[in-house]
């Protein structure tokens, strides 16, 4: 058994929260720069994309959050089957790490304890924690700070099993159309196809953890990723809804086995400030 201190988990989670919120992911920054090049010189669209690039620079240098909506935190923990936590509880350690980062770095506390009563917890916890078991003896932790402007535009549907690829594409493109200019385009889409309802939504969220510059390794899914991106860009919503060339700068799909009577599809919408970071403990 590889015993890992709970304090170490807390420390690493805190560090990942800070990194996610202040250093824009390199694949995302690269894609925004690509979008910048696509716009006409002197256009308002190009200027707005230029501001996003400047914003990433300012955040990285100053430690200011990339976006004031430092989000609700989703944590993905992959425990090696030979790893174990000592001197503490995994869930408590993860939440302590999140609370520490949001307190020490003055990030916004945007979590309410009860969805109906809506009292702010003041700590940006609890985080949403997904735990899985893997091979090995280390712990892989991925942290995503998810803002709710984009989260609120996420949708899912239970399609007929015979619906076909075009219907899947239409649903995803329609999701972007409904989001319009409201959730800070250009967007990044995490799409889940298959599973049960809750697994499908989880696939969509996990899809956003993969670099958006890397296609799905299944050829027929990689093709679907490209087609959805092309069709969504044809909507010509553009940055800030200014009708520019880039409405969606990344599409990642994750698939899973599903039931013979079902075709669940989930779209988790992210804005251009897709924020996540990961680390491995106990290697």
């Amino acid at each position: 058994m590889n015993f890992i201190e709970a304090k170490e988990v807390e420390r690493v989670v805190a560090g990942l929260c800070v990194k996610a919120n202040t250093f824009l992911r390199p694949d995302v920054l690269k894609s925004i720069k690509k979008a910048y090049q696509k716009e006409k010189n002197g256009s308002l669209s190009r200027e707005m994309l230029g501001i996003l690039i400047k914003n990433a620079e300012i955040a990285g240098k100053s430690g200011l959050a990339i976006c004031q909506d430092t989000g609700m935190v989703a944590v993905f923990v992959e425990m090696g089957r030979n790893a174990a936590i000592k001197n503490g509880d995994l869930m408590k350690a993860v939440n302590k790490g999140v609370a520490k980062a949001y307190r020490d770095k003055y990030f916004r506390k945007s979590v309410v304890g009860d969805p109906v009563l809506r009292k702010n917890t003041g700590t940006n916890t609890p985080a949403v924690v997904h735990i899985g078991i893997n091979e090995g003896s280390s712990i892989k932790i991925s942290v995503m700070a998810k803002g709710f402007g984009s989260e609120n535009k996420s949708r899912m549907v239970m399609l007929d099993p015979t619906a076909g690829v075009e219907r899947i594409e239409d649903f995803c493109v329609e999701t972007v159309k409904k989001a319009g200019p409201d959730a800070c385009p250009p967007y990044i889409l995490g799409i889940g196809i298959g599973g049960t309802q809750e697994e499908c939504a989880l696939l969509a969220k996990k899809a956003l953890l993969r670099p958006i510059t890397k296609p799905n390794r299944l050829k027929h899914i990689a093709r679907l990723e490209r087609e959805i991106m092309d069709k969504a860009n044809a909507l010509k919503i553009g940055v800030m809804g200014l009708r520019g060339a880039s409405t969606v700068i990344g599409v990642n799909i994750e698939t899973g086995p599903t039931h013979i009577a079902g075709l669940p599809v989930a779209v988790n919408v992210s804005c251009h400030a897709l924020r996540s970071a990961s680390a491995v403990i106990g290697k």
Partner: protein
Amino acid sequence: MPLDRKDILFLKAGEQVFLSGVIYTARDQAHLRMANMIKEGKGLPLSLERETIYYAGPTPSHGGKIGSCGPTTSSRMDVFTPALLKKGLKGMIGKGKRSKVVRDAIKSSGAVYFVAPAGAGAYLSTKIKSMEPVAFEDLGPEAIYRLTVEDFPVIVAIDARGGDIYERLSEGK
């Protein structure tokens, strides 16, 4: 800032403008509270006459450094906006489209709706010179903050004549 009536009439949808002066943040909960106060005939915690509201919930400031402060989605405040316009509100800054009801209310009040660069909270904080809470402090990031801004970049999204850069996208509503 505050906006001059003449200046507002000059502004055209799609124009880029730089704002300097005082604006007030207010978002979901603050709007809900103000709407209830108006309904109950109570006085608002601040005069909205000629003022501009910025739909934002900033990250906290500390050590004199202003936190990240970009715009939040304006459409969530649509239902509360006509009442505030009646109270003299003249400007709004946010992101995304508004409803037809709000567009019409902006037109009839001679007001203006701006959009600020969306998702650039760190960049925008460099245009904010001071921030202090003035009402509903218990709401934390959702409190009403008084901001002094300098060369704060915005784009006119809905002008006083009802010109709307998102009209094409609002058509479906």
